[in-house]
């Protein structure tokens, strides 16, 4: 492997694939971030159902986490992408339309990885909530805080501080899971790397470069999460 050649290939020169890889990286980040938002919403709903919901809500949350944690992400992506196409196709057929329609690959992919990692997030947030000392919530009740105020001022910040390490793991999972969006043709980092590797016939250079990009993203998000943890753990005595 010729390092100078590799740098030229992944650079921004006339023969470089830099701009394309960069665009792929942006798509990867966007997909992972949208997935994080979705998984957080699903996680919060599922965790509150498990912690405080009635029997029906608890059973629904339990079913969701059991199933979605037990199937491969790729399967869920295909299910959303091709599954949506058969549903949408059937609807379109009613209107005499014969072509292929599906959810856009990006949307189907984000929904899929968000739903899968949401199942993990349910457990992350549930565990974090259970780590909040009941007495601290009782103290909030005892001074007359209503349910909403208690949640906003006491329960949410305390839960979040316990949840941060777990949320960091979910984020890494989403970043890597977003590579599966390449299977439906979304032009994220993995897909763009495949294209570059294929058309230059230099797979080694490009896959190493893509690996390096993933490492840069995960390491720098690790730093961000560490700073956030430090911020939210202020006041915690460290042994």
């Amino acid at each position, binding site marked *: 492997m010729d390092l100078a050649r590799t740098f030229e290939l992944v650079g921004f020169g006339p023969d470089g694939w830099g701009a394309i890889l960069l665009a792929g990286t942006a798509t990867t980040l966007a997909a992972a971030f949208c997935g994080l938002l979705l998984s957080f919403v699903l996680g919060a709903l599922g965790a509150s159902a498990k912690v405080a919901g009635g029997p029906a809500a608890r059973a629904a949350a339990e079913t969701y986490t059991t199933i979605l944690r037990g199937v491969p992400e790729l399967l869920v992506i295909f299910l959303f992408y091709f599954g949506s196409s058969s549903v949408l196709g059937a609807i379109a057929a009613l209107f005499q339309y014969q072509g292929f329609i599906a959810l856009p690959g990006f949307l189907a992919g984000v929904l899929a990885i968000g739903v899968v990692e949401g199942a993990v997030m349910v457990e992350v947030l549930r565990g974090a909530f259970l780590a909040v000392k009941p*007495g601290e919530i009782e*103290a909030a009740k*005892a*001074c007359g805080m209503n349910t909403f105020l208690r949640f906003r001022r006491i329960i949410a910040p*305390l839960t979040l501080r316990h949840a941060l390490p777990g949320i960091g793991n979910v984020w890494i999972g989403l970043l890597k899971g977003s590579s599966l969006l390449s299977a439906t043709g979304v032009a994220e980092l993995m897909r763009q790397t495949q294209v570059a590797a294929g058309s230059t016939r230099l797979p080694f250079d490009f896959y190493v470069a893509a690996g390096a990009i993933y490492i840069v993203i995960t390491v720098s998000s690790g730093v961000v999460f560490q700073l956030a943890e430090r911020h939210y753990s202020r*006041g915690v005595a460290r042994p």
Partner: protein
Amino acid sequence: MTTAVRLQNIHKRFGALEVLRGITLEAQEGEVLSLLGSSGSGKSTLLRCINMLEIPNDGDVWVAGEAVKFRAGRQGQSRTVDTAQIDRLRSRIGMVFQSFNLWPHLTILENVIEAPIHVLKRPRSECIQEARDLLERVGIGDKAQYYPAHLSGGQQQRAAIARALAMHPNLMLFDEPTSALDPELVGGVLRVIRSLAEEGRTMLVVTHEMAFARDVSSRVIFLHKGEVEADGPPEDVFTNSSSPHFQQFLGREARTE
């Protein structure tokens, strides 16, 4: 005199265990009641029934002349009916817990101003000024910017007392306020509680501190197995109580002191 709290025939069960078996009790404004009893006698549960941290299975609770609304649910657990009423009553009842229960993500000052600002909706600057005075009063004026974890147990408990006082409560509940403290820290916290009693505040104190019960309270209530066995001024109860259980209890407490 007006009645601050009235409990009428309170029953509380945890599963098959009946913790309170028909307790009737009244506290007038300005009274300091010490609730005594061995562990498992139901004294903490009784205290928690007043601000509905535990909801009785039967009986009636009045706070400041207002009947607290609750009723038994389908599976036997009770629930409150009017959460707005409960929140409003709770905002006027200060509670101090055995394990302090300060909010660990807030500084001591923020702990004290939290409820006055967000529950009573008072102006922040006014709350801060008052909180500083309260912290000064309980002897930790220099700890306002510390987080709870960086304070000793005694300091945390004094901060918790300041947090309760900041709500201008009509009634203060103390649930074994010194039981979680190292012996050398107990005195400072008791001094603060005693000074509150001397101001004429209405207080119910669950305690194992016999000297405190004898010297500070205006009435002593002794609970045994979920029932009131003795109720009267400390000099009567401590010297003349006919309850054999109370004499046994005193003997045990004297040995552990």
